[in-house]
């Protein structure tokens, strides 16, 4: 166990009984949110931080579960003395609605039909997530977020927070994000969805009722996604053209290390992730376009937003490359907001936002430390 890590953590559940009106027009009459918190809320409630997770992430951001030797997904960033310092800050992370790690989602029971939601679970958008997280904020009696932080899809949620509740956020950190997806981004997502929906076990999304799983499709979707998270350089460095065995087999078995790695990633993923959630998350990414959705409201809200923004990108990220982050910067500059931007030299591709990198961590720590003066 990492000596500077938060130790044992436990998730909490809350049932929200306020009906949630979704962007699609549908309504979730009640729902469960699963979340974790680290550190403690100070007496004037000025140190709360919301961490937004990415496509396949969840509420387990840092620390260890009892008996588990693998920490939360951002344990390197969050903890005592780390850039997001749990000695000073109170961290909240919630499993997005529609997820498959404890919050209400496609694998939950629909209270109206008493059956598993499956494909009946309504489509979620980034703004719906913000609304649900606002409910949790009220439950926890948090008056404002000192920071809202996220990478990738989580970065988009952080931005959406500042657009949707401009007065409730003091600092926004969006890492490896984009103001909207490109045609190429959507194309990759669509292939991933097709892989799932073409699986013979798909059953129109109601596979759980049939007692089967579209694991072939889901693992294929993950393999494809995984390639877009890595960079050409990092794949070359890690795998090159290395073979599993010394000789070519002249067949279609796993021969190259990269094939073995991708299959492993795919197979590992299906043991902990739901196919309907994967579809929903990719679709909410595709739908994200706050500038178009909110048009004049966005500009009005941004004018009210006193938040400081930190936008971070990585040189080798080709999924949401630096130029996409610069579009966010431009949007904020056009609206005369306080924004800083850093383009970190990193070989890790899109996944660099999860990896150790001195410059990246220094930038985060500098911004967070300076912005948390007075806590």
């Amino acid at each position, binding site marked *: 166990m990492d000596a500077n890590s938060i130790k044992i953590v436990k998730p909490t559940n809350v049932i929200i009984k306020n009906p949630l009106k979704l962007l699609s027009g549908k309504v979730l009459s009640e729902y469960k949110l699963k979340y974790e918190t680290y550190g403690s809320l100070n007496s004037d409630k000025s140190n709360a931080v919301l961490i937004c997770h990415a496509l396949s992430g969840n509420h387990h951001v840092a620390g260890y579960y009892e008996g588990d030797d693998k920490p939360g997904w951002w344990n390197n960033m969050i903890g005592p003395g780390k850039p997001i310092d749990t000695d000073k800050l109170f961290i909240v992370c919630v499993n997005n609605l529609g997820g498959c790690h404890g919050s209400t989602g496609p694998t939950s029971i629909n209270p109206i039909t008493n059956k598993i939601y499956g494909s009946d679970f309504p489509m979620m958008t980034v703004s719906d997530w913000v609304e649900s997280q606002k409910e949790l904020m009220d439950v926890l009696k948090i008056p404002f977020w000192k920071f809202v932080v996220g990478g990738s899809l989580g970065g988009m949620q952080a931005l959406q927070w500042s657009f949707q509740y401009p007065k409730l956020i003091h600092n926004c950190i969006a890492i490896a994000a984009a103001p909207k997806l490109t045609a190429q981004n959507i194309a990759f997502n669509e292939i991933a969805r097709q892989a799932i929906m073409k699986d013979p076990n798909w059953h129109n999304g109601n596979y759980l009722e049939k007692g089967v799983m579209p694991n072939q499709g889901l693992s294929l979707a993950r393999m494809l996604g995984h390639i877009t998270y890595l960079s050409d350089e990092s794949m070359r460095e890690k795998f090159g053209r290395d073979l599993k065995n010394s000789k070519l087999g002249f067949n279609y078995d796993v021969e190259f290390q990269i094939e073995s790695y991708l299959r492993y990633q795919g197979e590992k993923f299906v043991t902990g992730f739901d196919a309907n959630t994967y579809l929903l998350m990719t679709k909410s990414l595709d739908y994200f376009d706050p500038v178009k959705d909110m048009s004049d409201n966005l500009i009005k809200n941004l004018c009210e937003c006193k938040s400081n923004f930190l936008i971070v990108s990585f040189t080798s990220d080709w999924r949401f490359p630096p130029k996409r982050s610069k579009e966010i910067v431009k949007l904020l500059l056009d609206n005369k907001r306080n924004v*800083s931007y850093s383009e970190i030299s990193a070989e890790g591709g899109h996944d660099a936002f999860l990896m150790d990198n001195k410059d990246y961590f220094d930038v985060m720590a*500098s911004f967070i430390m300076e912005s948390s003066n007075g806590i």
Partner: protein
Amino acid sequence: MAFRKDLLLISSWIKPNTKVLDLGCGNGELLKILKQEKNISGYGIDNDIDNIKLSLKNNVNVLQIDLDNGLEDFEFEYFDYVVLAQSLQVIKNPKELLNQMLRIGKEIIVSFPNMGHWSSRIQLLTSGIMPVTGNLPYSWHDTPNIHLCTIKDFLIFCEKNDFEILEKNITDNNQRCNLFTKLMPNLFGQIATFRIK
């Protein structure tokens, strides 16, 4: 850390409650002091990650952008002042950058080391090699300073491009003016600072 003397002059030229862009902002000290003393808002631009960290620690907005890629992201007259302190000589296309600065700023402030200073002239004349001075300590092959000019060069350039000089200040390295820098600025001035529109 001591405040750079040449920045004191620049900050004295900037009116309170204005918007400032500082190109090549280093550790952000100019913006920090302007924020504290004159309530200005603004951004620094630098392309060195260590300067980004230092600027963030100084609590100024800083953008990691390569100035050679231009300033298209800013709209017309977005700023009251655009500052380029002691960095003109490292820019790939100074004419283009100055034009961009004048587009996005109502006024610009530019300072640079004067290549026409007598010490540079004597070095070239007597030793026949490219001058290496305290301000410009690099050899010809490893210098980031690719567009050096003299005060006279700069004045000719301003005239050719219809840049209106509002104010100028020619000093030695310690920001001192004396009879020599007044009478023969191009021979005795080490740092030249111009306010232009």
